[in-house]
């Protein structure tokens, strides 16, 4: 067990709270830097997808996990970012400019979509964002002069001046840099007044307002930031996949993103990464398992959807805090070994129950 002796307020503000953090995150950093030499090209491509989905997941986590606003049409922001990047890259714009525009345009769209969030809550906001998702998907299919419609659009590799990043390794490092930057931005926001205002809105709007938080401004801001990250993720996605078609940004993609944050663990930054890993690894596992399943099950088309559904139900029932919640328990088990008690994480639940009975 680790006891931290605090002598300075800065210790609570710092990102690395103790030596363990420094050690493990340095190790993770080194592993990520060495990944291109340790992994096969295929595995590296999958890791790149994890990083891209983590960026998008961070955005949705900020919105759903920290501000309490659910978006069922998040793939639309991904699509706006991806198509903006594709069109600009094909027109020969330098990558830093085009990805910034992709993020900004997405943010602007996010602000507009955030407007109903000022009036409607919960399921109604879900419906509004769902409708928006359909509108964008349809728009991408119909606006053929720009998007190529259902025929699709191929994407030129990212280029800065004459320098073209077209290898798997180069693009991996590009995604790694952007992912680290996005993570730092979100983690910084969350330990500063802006992030606390988001959390306040999530937990009690009326009380947030009476603490002087401008609800409309912060909800719009959350939507804009979330959409910007989705747009940046979308831009990277466009380069990675190299060919865009509107059906990549359908409701299925939106639900995948929602799965990402819920299974990762709502309200935790780690959750965005764990969820992204889940989203990329799961189809591979299912594909691998197909060979061992009876043909009638293994070859049926709905297998992936069924497995996802079962996993989601299992998480909602047994681990509402997602993979990160499970990790917290495992970590506590090791920290306290052999003194871990079964009911340790039960307390808040039982209090809420007694509260409801009153």
């Amino acid at each position, binding site marked *: 067990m680790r006891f931290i002796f605090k002598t300075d307020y800065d210790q609570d503000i710092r990102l690395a709270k103790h030596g363990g953090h420094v050690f493990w995150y340095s190790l993770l950093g080194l592993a990520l830097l060495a990944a291109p030499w340790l992994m096969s090209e295929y595995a590296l491509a999958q890791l790149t997808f994890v990083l891209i989905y983590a960026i998008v997941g961070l955005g949705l986590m900020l919105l759903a996990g920290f501000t309490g606003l659910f978006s069922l049409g998040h793939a639309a922001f991904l699509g706006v970012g991806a198509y903006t990047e594709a069109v600009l890259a094909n027109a020969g714009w330098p990558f830093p400019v085009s990805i910034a525009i992709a993020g900004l345009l997405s943010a602007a769209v996010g602000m507009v979509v955030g407007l109903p969030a000022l009036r409607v809550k919960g399921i109604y906001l879900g419906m509004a964002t769902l409708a928006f998702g359909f509108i964008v998907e349809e728009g991408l299919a119909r606006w053929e002069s720009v998007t190529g419609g259902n025929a699709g659009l191929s994407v030129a590799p990212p280029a800065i001046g004459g320098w073209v990043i077209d290898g798997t390794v180069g693009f991996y490092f590009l995604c790694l840099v952007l992912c680290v930057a996005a993570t730092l931005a979100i983690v*910084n926001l969350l330990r500063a*007044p802006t992030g*606390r*205002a988001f*959390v306040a809105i999530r*937990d*009690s709007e009326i009380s947030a307002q009476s*603490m*002087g938080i401008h609800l409309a401004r912060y909800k719009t801001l959350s939507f804009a930031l979330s959409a910007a990250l989705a747009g940046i993720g979308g831009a990277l996605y466009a380069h990675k996949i190299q060919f865009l078609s509107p059906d990549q940004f359908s409701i299925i993609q939106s639900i995948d993103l929602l799965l990402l944050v819920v299974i990762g663990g709502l*309200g935790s930054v780690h959750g965005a990464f764990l969820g992204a890993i889940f989203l990329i690894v799961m189809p591979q596992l299912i594909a691998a398992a197909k060979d061992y399943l009876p043909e009638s099950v293994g070859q049926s088309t709905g297998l992936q959807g069924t497995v996802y559904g079962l996993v989601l139900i299992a998480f909602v029932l047994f681990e509402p805090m997602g993979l990160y919640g499970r990790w917290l328990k495992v970590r506590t088990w090791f920290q306290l070994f052999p003194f871990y008690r079964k009911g340790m994480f039960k307390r808040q639940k039982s209090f809420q129950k007694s509260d409801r009975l009153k």
Partner: protein
Amino acid sequence: MSHIHTESSEVLLSAQGLSVRFGGVLAVNDVSFDVRRGEVFTLIGPNGAGKTTVFNLISRIYTPTSGHIDYLGPHGMVRLTDQPPHRIAGLGIARTFQNIELFEHASVLQNLLIGRHTHRRTGLWQDMLFTARTRRAEIEAREKVEQVIDFLDLQHHRDSMVAGLPYGVRKVVELARALCTEPRLLLLDEPSSGLNVEETEDMAFWISDIKNDLGITVLMVEHDMSLVSKVSDRVLAMSMGAELAMGTPAQVQGDAKVIEAYLGTVDDVSSLRRSTPLEARP
């Protein structure tokens, strides 16, 4: 305690002819009162008297159907009823809620730091990059919060999640969060509800300390008459949305109309003795 209080005539908050109508219900009916700087002013009355509605008018959750509220802010007199709700905290008015409205899934410390929101000096980009200025501002905010933690003895609960705290502690955390905004006027909605006798006594001490040591004016809604008479300078009794009586706690408690509102009249009591069924009575 109330007798030591020196009479100050400066009016901090002035409500004139407040009325609120929700559909067919007149929740508050032509209520006027002045809260003077440095006093504890209490609203009492039976359930449904409109006390909390008056609070919600001050914190701008509701807009009055008629009447207005003036408030002496840090930059002079403002018409409170023209201000948007999020501006109220910045003017120096903090409040607690009858059914505790804390940020459940955040620690006590985070809850109190949110109380510093109106004092924030950094913008989005500074926060995102966590510049030296943000770090300094964070440490300053923490120092202010620690003063409040010391004042209300919350050291043990600093890093606990609110969701796991017992009711009595939550009540204190909510008071602490309101104090963190450094208010000029503190609105307490039933500070003693759900507290046991000891906790209520602590609350009484804190309220008088808030008044005497911190110099904060307190406007509260309260049912516990022992707490009311211990800490209040003046009391306004309300019933059915209208004013009944105003004065010192003793005066109001002795007022015939107030006794009638709480206990009913002699006629009402004698009517209960009759053997006629309730529906038959006029």
